């Protein structure tokens, strides 16, 4: 496997590990954009990411830590890691939820995260009910000023919206795609209905059709244990994984003739259009190494 030459992919930040998992005695070996890397923690606590193998063996990649994760880039991103204000609120539970490997393009993972119409079928009796499958009209747009995709006014009836839920609720959602491989959602908090829980999915594109998913919960919840919160999220994600690994192609087709959206797919339509404006090819069906 070799490092991609896709410039848009190279000039962005990616999660490559969970901060608490990488200690001085426990380095991490993994792969990003086709390139093997080693993630180590130095004596002073600083995180280092080094390319291993290939033409650039030994080069250091830029690395930072945010929100409980280790972030790396091989290029020169034109912006910092996105802001996530909720992570700093004092009464928030900020819970990393382990990792899951998925044999699918990270772009497919983002689209699945943005989608509500699958809730009754894939997350039956949790995030959706089979007798209430309708997706009401919502809005989706590319926000050029922050270079993000936002979907607003999303609503869905949910039998069990979160670990803290005691019964059903009408969940309000706002979706926010911060980079092609990193997406967040804000949803009605069962415990404090005037506030939003934030759930993030950070994706490490291992190869064009293989990913590692890092879910993050940033929630207001005074009753659940950390394990309850992690388990709730893991269960949801593993239900999605069966779908993700069985989509064809495994990469995301950007050709509009390949797949058929409906009104419920406004956010994915905006997302695919945004990817094209960035000339991001890595992870798409049309991607081919030059």
């Amino acid at each position, binding site marked *: 496997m070799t490092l991609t030459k896709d410039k848009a992919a190279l000039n962005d930040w990616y999660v490559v590990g969970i901060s608490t998992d990488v200690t001085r005695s426990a380095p991490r070996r993994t792969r990003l954009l086709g390139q093997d890397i080693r993630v180590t923690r130095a004596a002073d606590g600083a995180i280092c990411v080094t390319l291993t193998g290939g033409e650039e063996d030994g080069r250091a990649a830029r690395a930072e830590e945010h929100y409980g994760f280790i972030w790396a880039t091989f290029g020169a991103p034109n912006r910092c890691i996105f802001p996530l204000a909720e992570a700093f609120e004092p009464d928030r539970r900020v819970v990393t939820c382990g990792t899951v490997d998925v044999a699918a393009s990270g772009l497919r993972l983002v689209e699945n995260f943005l989608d509500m119409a*699958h809730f009754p079928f894939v997350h039956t009796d949790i995030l959706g009910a089979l007798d209430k499958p309708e997706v009401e009209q919502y809005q989706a747009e590319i926000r050029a000023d922050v270079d993000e995709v936002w979907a607003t006014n999303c609503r869905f009836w949910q039998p069990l919206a979160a670990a803290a839920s005691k019964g059903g609720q009408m969940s309000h959602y706002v979706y926010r795609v911060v980079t092609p491989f990193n997406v967040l959602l804000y949803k009605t908090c069962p415990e404090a209905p005037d506030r939003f829980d934030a759930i993030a999915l950070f994706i490490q594109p291992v190869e064009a059709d293989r990913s590692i998913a890092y879910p993050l919960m940033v929630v207001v919840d005074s009753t659940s244990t950390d394990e309850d919160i992690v388990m709730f999220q893991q269960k949801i994600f593993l239900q999605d994984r069966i779908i993700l690994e069985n*989509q064809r192609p495994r990469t995301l087709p950007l050709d509009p003739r390949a797949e058929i959206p409906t009104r419920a797919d406004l956010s994915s339509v905006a997302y695919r259009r945004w990817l094209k404006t960035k000339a991001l090819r890595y992870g798409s069906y049309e991607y081919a190494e030059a």
Partner: protein
Amino acid sequence: MPTETYSDHPILPLEDGWHAVALSRDLPAGAPFPVILGGREIVIWRAESGAVRAWVDRCPHRGMRLSLGFVRGDTLSCLYHGWRYRGEGGGCDHIPAHPDLVPPKTITVELYGAAEAAGLVWVRTGEGTDAPAVPDTGLNGAMSVTIDAPAERVKAGLALPEGMAAEVQPVLATRCRVHVTAESDRLKAAIAFAEALRRRFETPDLFAAE
């Protein structure tokens, strides 16, 4: 078919015509079943009425494999968003996210010809509407086995015992599936034959010692 190329596997050239892909007894009503035919990902399923259908294993919405879907009457629905397709013609007739919408006629799955004969389910590649030119052997389905060897090699080395028949289906370049049928008093022997055939091609050294 353009969407065939979205398969996980390279598409192998196949003669236009009918290919056996399953025993009829292995396809009860109500259960969609995945088939890989020369790299093509295909879903076969039997409606409650008994009619057998064969489609490209891919929902045109977001590419989800229909073989993981669910059958209701003579319709097959996709597991991802529940889009429902009619067995006759493959047109979408219901989108749960928009229950009042009449789905446009452009939303349709891609069809293969499907038929049953001689105790087997057949899929047709290429154009044409003829029925499979297969004599009705009157034999019953015994077993299907997947063998990690090229179809041509297995076909050439079949050595069928009396009272049995076999159809070899190309799966991938180095994998095939053999569908064995037999007379009703030879079914147990036919299962043993199918498993021995697999051992012969997959572990020839061990097989020689048997």
